[in-house]
């Protein structure tokens, strides 16, 4: 494992765009990608002629970098890739392109598209029906999304946990979503409603998991030096990484004591000068609430199994949300439980908005450093430390 981080603070996020997220359907994936992309490029004070790198997340049903380049009227590009979904993979790919000189201004597009496999509305849409595979999976499966319910049961068993910390993660997101116009769901959630909720994959209920949505985020990255002459306060990528353990088949994982989350945290701690005592904002992924509990524990906010106590102690009962030490809010945009299954791109976008002071009604005064940890336990844990340029 390396402790080298020559890219530290050398690459900046300078443009943001987002379509917002919805369950309505009706737009093509290319139209959503282009809407987010044009907004991000404009936000960065650039034009299509400046963009020489395109990173488009390889999301099922979404447009690739070549279609987006053609659609935007990009002249020529020297970096064009489609990393696997979940936000930091694409962020890292773009940052490395800027840092190594592969391109000067890299556009990242991170679309999510409801498919016939996860949405009845999409299954009824003649323009999306074609993506159906025709093979029904067997129910007796503890891989992919189901694995989080399976390991949630193990967490509860090993630590004697109740559903209380799971509820707090869900309620925190919905509380914060009220001030986020991009959210697909922005109504508040009560402990009573959480407890009464329909179980989907017991022990997880409908509020413990995010929902499929349509939408796209876009980001523009360039060098920290170039960023100084662009309109917004640059937000620097201080440290970022992904991480897995070798034995990562979901139901064969050795245990919750060593997952990719630990690999990510160890790597960030080796390469970042900023850690949890120094941050102003925390964005742990909560597409499944169990993931958030272990991010709190594995990042070192509390020991393993103690997220229940920690979240109770750091709960603002008046505001109905988590505030670490009364100071650090968590998922200020309402997370994936409110925006939908955006695979952490919302967590990243919101961190940038906060750090450059464009978060509107959600703005945390004086926020200068954020820890963003998208991904789950198995094949996509990742993290990034972002900071405001000084």
């Amino acid at each position, binding site marked *: 494992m390396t402790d080298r981080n020559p890219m530290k603070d050398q690459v900046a996020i300078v443009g943001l765009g987002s379509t917002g997220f919805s369950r309505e359907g009706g737009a093509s994936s290319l139209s959503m990608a282009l809407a987010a992309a044009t907004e991000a490029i404009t936000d960065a004070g650039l034009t299509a002629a400046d963009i020489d790198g395109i990173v488009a997340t390889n999301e099922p049903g979404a447009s690739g970098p070549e279609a987006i380049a053609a659609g935007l009227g990009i002249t020529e590009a020297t970096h064009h890739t489609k990393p696997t979904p979940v936000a930091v993979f694409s962020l890292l790919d773009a940052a490395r392109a800027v840092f190594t000189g592969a391109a000067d201004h890299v556009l990242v597009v991170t679309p999510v598209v409801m498919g016939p496999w996860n949405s009845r509305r999409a299954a009824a849409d003649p323009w999306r029906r074609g993506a159906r595979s025709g093979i*029904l999976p067997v*129910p*007796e*499966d503890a891989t992919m999304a189901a694995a989080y319910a399976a390991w949630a*049961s*193990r967490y509860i068993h090993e630590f004697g946990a109740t559903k209380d910390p799971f509820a707090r993660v869900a309620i925190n997101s919905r509380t914060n979503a009220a001030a986020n116009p991009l959210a697909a769901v922005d109504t508040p959630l009560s402990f009573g409603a959480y407890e009464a909720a329909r*179980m989907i994959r017991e022990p997880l209920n409908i509020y413990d998991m995010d929902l499929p949505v349509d939408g796209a985020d876009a980001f523009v990255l360039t060098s920290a030096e170039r960023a100084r002459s662009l309109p917004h306060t640059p937000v620097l990528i201080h440290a970022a990484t992904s991480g897995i353990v070798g034995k990562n088949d979901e139901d*064969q994982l050795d245990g919750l004591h060593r997952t990719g989350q630990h690999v990510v945290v160890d790597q960030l701690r080796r390469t970042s000068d900023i850690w949890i005592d120094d941050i102003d904002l925390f964005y742990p992924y909560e597409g499944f609430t169990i993931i958030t509990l272990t991010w709190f524990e594995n990042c070192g906010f509390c020991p393993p199994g103690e997220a229940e106590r920690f979240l109770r102690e750091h709960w603002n009962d008046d505001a109905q949300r988590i505030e670490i030490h009364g100071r650090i809010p968590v998922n200020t945009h309402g997370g994936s439980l409110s925006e939908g299954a955006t695979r952490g791109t919302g967590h990243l976008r919101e961190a940038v908005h906060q750090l450059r002071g464009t978060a509107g009604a959600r703005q945390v005064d004086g926020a200068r450093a954020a820890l963003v940890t998208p991904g789950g336990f198995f094949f996509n844990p990742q993290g990034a430390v972002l900071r405001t340029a000084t």
Partner: protein
Amino acid sequence: MNGNSEETDEETDDVLIARFAGNGITRDSADHFRGRLDRRLLMARCADCGRWQHPPRPMCPACWSWNMTMDEVSGRGTIHLLMVLHQGPPATGVDYSTGHPVVTVELEEQRALRFTSTVSDDFPAEDLAIGTAVEVEWIERDGTPMPVFRKAAS
């Protein structure tokens, strides 16, 4: 035993794939599924170092031997992960309105060697919990043998 076992030798790849498509059958796991047709729970094992490997892989990750074989496991173990599905893909005999248990069983052969399935119809509700000792039992779904777990005889 039922008639399925006699068909095994004639089971072409196409038929095998069609039968187990929903289980995500691959070239590397085909022999595991052929074993199911004979009601034998086969798992991949390295013939050189003896390590079990599930899901099946063509090479042993412990010693890089390509000498992977399929061996029958005892089918005995303990429930390690547990969920109860209240919705999911339609399947014969599965009633989500009463909750469909899915258990991941840690087998006695090796630490963290696990197999995921459901439990027998007569599984005692009070024992459906992580830590319960179980053993494999064979049922049929759509005419194909399927390994599930019953409470272990004590």
